């Protein structure tokens, strides 16, 4: 009987905890969507309305008046390119670090993580202005690589380390060159890692604000800058912000949901190991 009471007590604690942890997250998420579904005047009325007739006008306005589809396209291109290039450069590098224990690249990556982004930004801005590359995909993709390339490389090292060396040796006995064995044997074995690091890289590039704030312009504006621009000269379009924020946050949240199990490795970037 006492055991049963203890069990009930424990499950009460667990469910209280579960509710306490979920409510703030769900609330902010819901408030974002609700802000997007309310009219401008509903958004600044007090007390705030919890029950209202939703309108899709803001979402329509975001696309029609603010050209949001174009900014989504920009973000997609830049995050996609940065991720693709990071994979092409990062996969062989990570493989080599895992196999030949090369620490120097690790130090360079750590340097990239540690340096304040602003310190890159000023030199980059000066160089790109000189090369007339401000407001181009080239400039934005290159700067996003500062974040995504180290992330992909470091994440993949852990995955490559888990590939047994015998498999490759066997492949080479069968007449594969090292390059072939890397492409045909090793890469398919780490496809989970590739998927995870690609998604992580995409999320962090998609979310990047500072580089785009300075280096983009009307042609290459990305979604974080576009939503920020709903604030203009003291007048804030809350309804537009709600709709735009929802459109920006939803895709990356869905992505993150799928890789949440392996995300830790991407976050720790080897910090848990030596």
């Amino acid at each position, binding site marked *: 009987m006492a055991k049963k009471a203890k069990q009930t007590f424990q499950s009460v604690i667990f469910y209280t905890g579960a509710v306490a942890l979920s409510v703030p997250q*769900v609330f902010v998420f819901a408030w974002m969507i609700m802000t997007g579904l309310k009219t401008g005047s509903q958004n600044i009325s007090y007390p705030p309305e919890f029950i209202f007739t939703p309108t899709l006008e803001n979402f329509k306005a975001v696309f029609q008046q603010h050209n949001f589809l174009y900014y989504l396209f920009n973000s997609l291109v830049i995050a996609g390119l940065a991720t693709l290039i990071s994979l092409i450069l990062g996969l062989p590098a990570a493989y080599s670090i895992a196999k030949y224990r090369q620490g120097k690249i690790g130090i360079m990556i750590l340097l990239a993580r*540690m340096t304040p982004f*602003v310190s890159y930004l000023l030199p980059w801005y000066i160089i790109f202005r000189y090369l007339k590359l401000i407001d181009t995909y080239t400039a934005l993709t290159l700067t996003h690589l500062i974040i995504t390339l180290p992330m992909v490389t470091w994440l993949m090292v852990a995955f490559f380390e888990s590939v047994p060396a015998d498999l490759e040796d066997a492949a080479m006995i069968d007449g594969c060159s*090292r390059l072939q064995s890397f492409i045909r044997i090793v890469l398919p074995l780490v496809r989970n890692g590739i998927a995870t690091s690609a998604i992580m890289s995409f999320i962090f590039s998609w*979310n990047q604000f500072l580089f785009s704030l300075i280096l983009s312009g009307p042609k290459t504006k990305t979604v974080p800058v576009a*939503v920020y621009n709903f604030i203009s000269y003291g007048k804030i379009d809350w309804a537009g912000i709600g709709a735009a924020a929802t459109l920006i946050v939803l895709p990356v949240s869905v992505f993150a949901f799928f890789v949440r199990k392996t995300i*830790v490795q991407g976050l*720790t970037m080897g910090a848990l190991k030596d």
Partner: protein
Amino acid sequence: MSTALSTISRVIDRRQAVIYPAPAVIVLFLIVVLPIVFNLYLAFTKWTVGLGQPRFIGLDNFIDLVSDERVWNGVKVMVYFSGLSLFLELVLGLLIALFFNREFRGSEVVQAIYIFPFAATPVAVALIWRIMLNPEIGVLNYLLRSIGLPGSLWVSSEQTAVLSLVLVDVWKWTPMITLIVLAGLKSLPPDPYEAARIDGAGTLQIFWHITLPLIRPVLIAALMLRSLDNLKEFDMIYTITQGGPGTASETLYLYSYMVGFGFFKAGYGSALMVVVFLIVLVFNVVMNRLRLSAQNR
């Protein structure tokens, strides 16, 4: 043609250790090391972007920044903001990780919901927080008042601006600490626990004498990782307060951005960025020492 290809393939094979990482290293050198060197050079010059050429002025920028009140304010705000938010994220992250470590029905679902803020675009969610924190029409004050508590001025007051930013930072980043610590907890060896239970140790004793010492390296690693981004928090502060009211929430990092891109003083801005970099570097070297000594114990 095919002989050329096989020759290339053979060269790649023989020099695999050098050739595989070479492209990444070259690109990283161009996009990471070169700008840092350029930034370091600029720190010793006086230059307004767009006007003339950088002029070498030695250590003048560094001498100037010692007597710049906004620098000291920036350091103060940085220590206050980062100290408090890192502390809270670490403590809460550990507690919540312990909670999730005892798997219960539905814990998977709760975890999936709980980690949502981590991937959410910082600027987008910061804007939503800005609406919610509004003292007049914000939903947070409405909720506080409806349970009989007084509302707060949140980011509109110098006293509570940093605290409000800490709240948002804790909301967004505690899940990340939780995930890392949880991974650490799951990989702890079972033996000490069994021994302790045989000795009749209580839950609290087990936590204090076994879990905490074992998990300490992971906690420090999580703190290091989080501090890398926290010490240079930009998006959220820039979106919610822009360092205001006045300079009440202007961290050194934000100030260095303002000098570089608000006033376009490249030389002085670069000197400030070098200082921020050194602070992050020293913090991490110290933490790494702590981590290694915690591991070797």
